């Protein structure tokens, strides 16, 4: 189990952390320097990109002819939605499928799906709230039971259920299998959210960039700011995914080894007592 894990995570056994065989404790997963550098690089780029998007979006780009200053929320809201719906939940669905597929079955995919869903849920909450903040001055209400809004809320509830399910105590393989089924079921909602603006008469506007004609309805500095927002938030998602995945690796290692360690400690205590003479033990001999 640990071999499979360390081979697929960029984590290698650390020589200092190698443990003697008679304890049953396996090698502790340690992050390689290459993985650490990659993570720092992506994190720094994400931070710079996000700051630049906010600067361009709030201070540099002009107000829109129709929406006025409210258009500034459009530089960040679609990017957040892109990460939540397509990247995070899409990746969770693909990972779950690869876990269920017998030839690619590995806890690596299960852990990746879990990490992706958690990050996706955070972005999904940001999507709904930022959309609601935009909707109040534009539509006059904080919330409407519009097809896209409702389906996005349903998606959030389903993936919250996925996270709750993962907390139910079970063997790792059992947990992985049932979580994968739930993730695939929930991910069916993603294309429904995407096409909802075409299939139903909704209040939510249609796609600005990835529309049916593939002709973007946004230009100039507005388009570049929107694009930068997408790139920055994608990098932020990748960074969060790496850190969250690493948390999963460490949690699983602790869960696997704590019992072995407790047994080893009891054995070493027993060895200490056996070394003592009977008189040392209270003279009960």
């Amino acid at each position, binding site marked *: 189990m640990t071999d499979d894990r360390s081979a697929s995570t960029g984590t290698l056994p650390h020589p*200092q*952390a190698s*443990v*003697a*065989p*008679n*304890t049953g*404790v396996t090698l*502790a*997963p340690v992050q390689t320097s290459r993985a650490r550098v990659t993570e720092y690089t992506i994190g720094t780029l994400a931070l710079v990109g*996000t700051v630049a998007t*906010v600067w361009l*979006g*709030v201070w540099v780009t002009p107000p829109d002819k129709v929406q006025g*200053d*409210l258009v*500034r*929320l459009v530089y*960040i*809201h679609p990017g*957040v939605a892109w990460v939540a719906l397509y990247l995070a939940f899409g990746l969770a669905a693909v990972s779950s499928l690869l876990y269920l597929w017998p030839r690619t079955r590995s806890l690596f995919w299960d852990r990746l799906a879990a990490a992706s869903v958690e*990050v996706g849920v*955070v972005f999904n*909450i*940001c999507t709904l*709230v*930022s959309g609601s*903040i*935009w909707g*109040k*001055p534009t539509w006059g209400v904080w919330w409407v039971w519009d097809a896209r809004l409702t389906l996005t809320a349903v998606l959030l509830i389903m993936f919250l259920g996925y996270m709750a399910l993962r907390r139910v105590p079970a063997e790792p393989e059992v947990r992985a299998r049932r979580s994968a089924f739930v993730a695939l079921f929930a991910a069916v909602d993603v294309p429904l959210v995407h096409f909802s603006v075409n299939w139903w008469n909704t209040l939510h506007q249609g796609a600005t960039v990835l529309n049916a004609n593939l002709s973007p309805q946004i230009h100039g500095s507005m388009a570049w700011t929107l694009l930068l927002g997408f790139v920055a938030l994608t990098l*932020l998602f990748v*960074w*969060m995914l790496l*850190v*969250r995945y*690493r*948390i999963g690796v*460490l*949690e699983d*290692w*602790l869960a696997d*080894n*704590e019992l*072995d*360690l407790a047994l*080893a*400690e009891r*054995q*070493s205590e*027993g*060895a*200490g*007592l*056996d070394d003592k003479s*009977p008189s040392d*033990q209270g003279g*009960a*001999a």
Partner: protein
Amino acid sequence: MRYVVGGYVFILVVLFLYAVQLVWRRRRLARAVSQVAQVAQVAAAAPPVPLRATAGRSIDAVPIAEDPT
């Protein structure tokens, strides 16, 4: 403009707090793993002792000196 500021502030604060929480959680777990690994090394240095057979009795009822093993 207050809606714009509110939207940006909400998203940035949530993402920042989540990122901080991730880093804190990872650091705490990494520390726990290294502590477990250290304790395991100490435990491994001790000579292995076979577990005592209790033959259905409570472990407290089996004196260490009478260990059949």
